[in-house]
C-alpha cells in the first residue's frame, strides 16, 4: 500500500498540481512539499511526499567500490 511513483510537475494551482507520469497527467496534492514547476516528486495516494534530489550516484559508486573490494578479497 506504500506504493509511490515519481512524476514531473507541469503546473501548480495552490495546494494542487498537475503531474506527468510517463505521459499520464494526474491532479495531485502538493501541500507537503515545497515544489515548483519542473520538479520531480514522489506521489502516493494522490499526494506528493517528497521532491527528488540527484544524490544517489555518489552513494552507489561508493558501495560499488566496496563490494568490488570484498569480491576481490574473497
Amino acid at each position, binding site marked *: 500500500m*506504500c506504493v509511490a511513483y515519481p512524476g514531473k510537475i507541469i503546473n501548480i494551482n495552490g495546494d494542487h498540481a498537475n503531474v506527468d507520469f510517463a505521459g499520464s497527467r494526474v491532479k495531485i496534492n502538493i501541500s507537503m512539499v515545497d515544489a515548483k514547476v519542473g520538479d520531480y516528486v514522489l506521489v502516493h*495516494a494522490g499526494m506528493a*511526499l517528497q521532491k*527528488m534530489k540527484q*544524490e544517489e550516484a555518489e552513494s552507489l559508486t561508493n558501495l560499488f567500490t566496496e563490494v568490488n573490494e570484498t569480491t576481490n578479497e574473497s
Partner: protein
Amino acid sequence: MNPEQQSRRKAMADYLKSYSGRPLRLMEVCGTHTSMLYRTGVRALLPNEINMLSGPGCPVCVTPTNYIDKLVEYSFKANTCVLSFGDMLSVPGSETSLLGARARGGHVDFFYAPEQALDRAEKEPETTFILAAVGFETTAPVWVSVVDAVLKRKLRNVKLLTALKTMPFAMDTLCATGKIDGFLCPGHVAVIIGSEAFRPLAEKWGRPMVVGGFTAELLLAALARLVHESSCGRGGLWNEYPSYVRPEGNQKAQAAIARVFQPGNACWRGLGVLRCSGLYLRGKYAQLDAGSYGLDDDHLPDGCRCGDVLTGDINPRQCPFFNQKCTPDHPIGACMVSSEGACRIYCVEGEISK
C-alpha cells in the same frame, strides 16, 4: 541505462549471486519491497544463504479482524456508507469481509485517493461516510489533508475509522526476537520519518538497517549493502535511497501528522498490541473519529498462519493452507488478500524453489 550504471548493476548482482558466507536472515519490512523483489527478478538471483523474510509492512495484513468487523457493522447502518482503499475490501473479518457485506446489502465502496471521497460526501449530505483510514507513516499525511479538507469544507457527514500505524515500534519488537540479521527498511515510510529514525534501532540492536528504494538497481544496491554489512556483523544505518529519503525526512509532513494525530496503542496481527504504535485523531480533530480506539481483538480463522508469516517465523509456503485452502480467489488470511501480502505475492508472482 548508461554503461557505468550497467556495470554497477552487474557488479551488485554478481556479488549477491556469488555470496557464500554465513546464512543470513534478512527482513524486507515493506510489502511493496516484497512485491518488487519478485517483479524485478532480484529475488530469483539470491543464493540459499540469503534468506529474505517478509515483514509486517502491509497495512491491510496487520489490521486486526475487529477493525474489519466494525466497518462491516457500519456498512449495515441506515444512511451510512463505508469507503476504503480497494485493498481492504476482501480482507476477512470474523464473519465476513467488506465485499461480503456489500453482497448482503451493506453499503461499501472504494476510492483510489481519499480526497475523492469528499466530493461524494458533499453531493450526498444525507449519508454518513465512514472512511477506512488505514496505512503507515507514508499514508498518514494523506489522511491529514483529508481531515483538513473535511473541516475546511464543513462536511458534517464524514468520519474516519483509523488503523494508522508507525513502523519503528514493530521493528523494535522484531529485533527483540533476535532472529533477524538485518533489515531492508521501508523506503516510503523513510521518505516521511527520515532515515535517521531507524538509527536508534540499529544502535540498540547492533543490526544493519538499510533504507532502500524500489527499482531493480536500488534494490540490488540496498541488498548488496545489507548482505555486505550483515556478513561483516556490522550494525548501523545506511541510506541507499537518497534521491527521496533525507536523513530528517519530510518535516512538513511530520509536523502535519503531529498536529492532527497523537500516538496510542495499536494491535498488529502477529505482534499483538504495541505501545504507542498507532496514530489517533487528537484535539479538535477527534470529533471526526468513528470509534477507533481499543480495536484490539484479532480472530484468525482456525489454522491460519498469517501471524507467523508477518513476523518472518515461517514463509508463506510453510502454511498448510498456502495455495490449497487459501488462494488469491478464496483467501482465508489477509496476507493472501492484499497485493502487498506476502502469501499473495508468493502465490501470484511465481514459484521460486525456496
